[in-house]
């Protein structure tokens, strides 16, 4: 037995020496980082904005000398918001491209299917847009978890949605409209739970499929049930059909829903019918701090336009790249377990666009966004503005996760 251990340690140390040699030979080789998200299809406004945000940050990092003296190279892959494509990409990035970490994931279902492979290969994932509550806690029985997040999860969002409707607007008869995907149905459960904590029961809970074009039945049901507010968990195109159906039926009640109400596909398709929708946002495209101003200007300089397709995704993507870079720097290594340890104990204080990250993660807590960080946004004239400007007034502009 002792011999075996001895032999094993010799083998390991030889391997380590070998690896160090290889590593030093590669010292100027780029550090490969995976980037997985839907760049085409119904979720593409989020995917493309996230990718552009990440690329912007990586360009800045590389211009400033890279990480560990090496540039970061992004390996971008389009997962088309399809679970099976996400899985293929995960395997390709891990086994063929040998990435040191992966940023991305817009869709909860894709993340749920793909993250398993990173966990098995001990490669960290910074999930920067997907919000499914389960994603940072997929394997409660395992000792370590390689999935970290920079977005506001659905538990945070559903609590904010319920509070906004029930407490702030004083509307006690909500109707929930959710799509039939994982995202919509898990969100509906979170919402029902959050409402029950406020002693409110939804008067109706209706469902629809992706691609449904006629929401008359769903909206009529909500109306006849006496709903005074519509709570939504769905994505852009169908949300727009809801707003259009409400306008058609000449029924106007406030619409409060998950952050996807800020998607360009909702705002553009619903047009004036979409105005007034309220949703949680970690970032609103407004230069409320010098950092945000610089970010917005750099984004439009690099990608044109005067409105980000999905500002939240762009900001969270941008921040996720800086957090990863800080972790690699601190780990002084590109090995997965070391990067994970560094992430769980980040010493550097990172001034991001969404917030300032001061020890964002611990071994137990892999959520960088706490309930106090997001604010409510409002669709107005084709843009998202703060629903309650006082939320961002003065020193509240940067909301920081409480120490704990």
């Amino acid at each position: 037995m002792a011999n075996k251990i001895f032999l094993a340690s010799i083998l390991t140390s030889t391997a380590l020496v070998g690896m160090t040699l290889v590593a030093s030979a590669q010292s100027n080789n780029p550090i490969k980082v995976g980037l997985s998200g839907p760049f085409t299809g119904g979720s593409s406004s989020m995917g493309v904005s996230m990718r552009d945000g990440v690329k912007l940050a990586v360009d800045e990092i590389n211009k400033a000398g890279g990480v560990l003296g090496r540039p970061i190279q992004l390996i971008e892959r389009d997962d088309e918001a399809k679970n099976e494509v996400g899985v293929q990409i995960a395997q390709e990035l891990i086994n063929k491209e040998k990435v040191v970490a992966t940023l991305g994931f817009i869709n909860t279902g894709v993340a749920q299917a793909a993250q398993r492979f990173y966990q098995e290969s001990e490669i960290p994932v910074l999930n920067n847009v997907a919000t499914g509550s389960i994603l940072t806690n997929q394997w409660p029985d395992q000792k370590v978890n390689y999935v970290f997040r920079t977005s506001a999860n659905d538990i945070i969002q559903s609590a904010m949605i319920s509070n906004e409707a029930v407490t702030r607007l004083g509307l006690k008869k909500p109707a929930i409209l959710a799509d039939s995907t994982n995202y919509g149905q898990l969100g509906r459960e979170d919402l029902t739970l959050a409402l029950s904590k406020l002693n409110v029961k939804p008067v109706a809970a209706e469902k629809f499929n992706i691609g449904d074009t006629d929401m008359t039945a769903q909206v009529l049901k909500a109306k006849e049930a006496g709903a005074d507010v519509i709570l939504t968990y769905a994505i852009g195109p169908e949300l727009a059909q809801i707003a259009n159906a409400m306008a058609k039926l000449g029924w106007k009640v406030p619409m409060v829903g998950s952050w996807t109400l800020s998607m360009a596909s909702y705002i553009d398709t619903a047009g004036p019918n979409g105005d007034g929708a309220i949703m949680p946002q970690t970032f609103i495209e407004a230069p409320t701090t010098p950092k945000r101003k610089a970010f917005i200007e750099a984004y439009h300089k690099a990608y044109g336009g005067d409105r980000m397709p999905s500002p939240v995704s762009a900001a969270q993507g941008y921040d996720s790249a800086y957090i990863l870079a800080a972790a690699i720097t601190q780990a002084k290594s590109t090995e997965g377990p070391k990067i994970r340890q560094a992430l769980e104990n980040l010493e550097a204080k990172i001034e991001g666009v969404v917030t300032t990250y001061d020890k964002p993660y611990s071994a137990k807590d892999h959520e960088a966004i706490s309930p106090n960080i997001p604010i409510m946004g409002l669709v107005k004239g084709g843009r998202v503005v703060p629903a309650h400007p006082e939320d961002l007034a003065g020193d509240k502009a940067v909301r920081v996760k409480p120490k704990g």
Partner: protein
Amino acid sequence: MDILAQLIVSGISVGMVYGVIAFGYQLTFATSKTLNFGQGEALMLGALVGLTTINFLIATGMSTLVAFALMLPIVLIFGLAQGAVVEFLGVRQAMRTKSEAGWIMATIALGIIFKNLAENIWGRDALRFPSPLPEQALSLGAVRIQPMEIAILLGALGLMVAVEIFNRKSIYGKAVVATALDRDAAGLMGIDTRLVITFSYALSSMSAAFAGVLVAPITLTGPAMGGALGLKAFAVAIIGGLSSGYGVVVGGMILGITENLTGYYISTGYKDVPGLLLLLLVLSIKPAGLFGSTAIKKV
């Protein structure tokens, strides 16, 4: 009562779209006993070609209504051409070799190819189609309806009536009817039945393309828009009967209305179920469809 009326009116306008697509199935089935399983893709291509055309015309400074009117003939001609291509590539060969299933595979394959083509040209995103009519809903009593929904109803009926009149009154149309009644006899009378079948495919895709630009302003346009519509229209064609032009109109309305009524009175989660139940019911009780005439297949 008001709610029932509202549900029925909304159901009719959706149902008419199903009806026009199903009408296309019926056209080719009458002449050749084959169907284009890529009918949903014909609709999608029509809508996307229409979108590019209308955006181009609007960019030249026209009003949306004028641009829409000018775009229509282009889309119809495109539909005719697209249908002819489907027949030439997919159906003709299978008919020549008397293959029973060849045309099924071929039209499905062509549908997939058209979808991929569209994804490459227009991308996978759903795009907004400019509405030629005001989007403000009108009030008819307690029922509210969008002007575009009325346009769908009238346009769909108009197209089907026009095709029926053409078939009954014009000499070319009579050739179509003759081929539908008895292809061999029509051939003996000097009718080029092969050309007639190509023509019926062209007409079929034309009606699908027309349905595409009608429905696009109230939904979104994109490569994925055809799939579900084509499938529902297929159910409509079975329910109404593949040999009856009126059958598909009524079948479309039945499906559109039942979907809405189920969604409201039972559960929105079960919206698609009654259509399928109806399909099974019709198939088991009256396989030729509610309005179809039972044909005896002579072997």
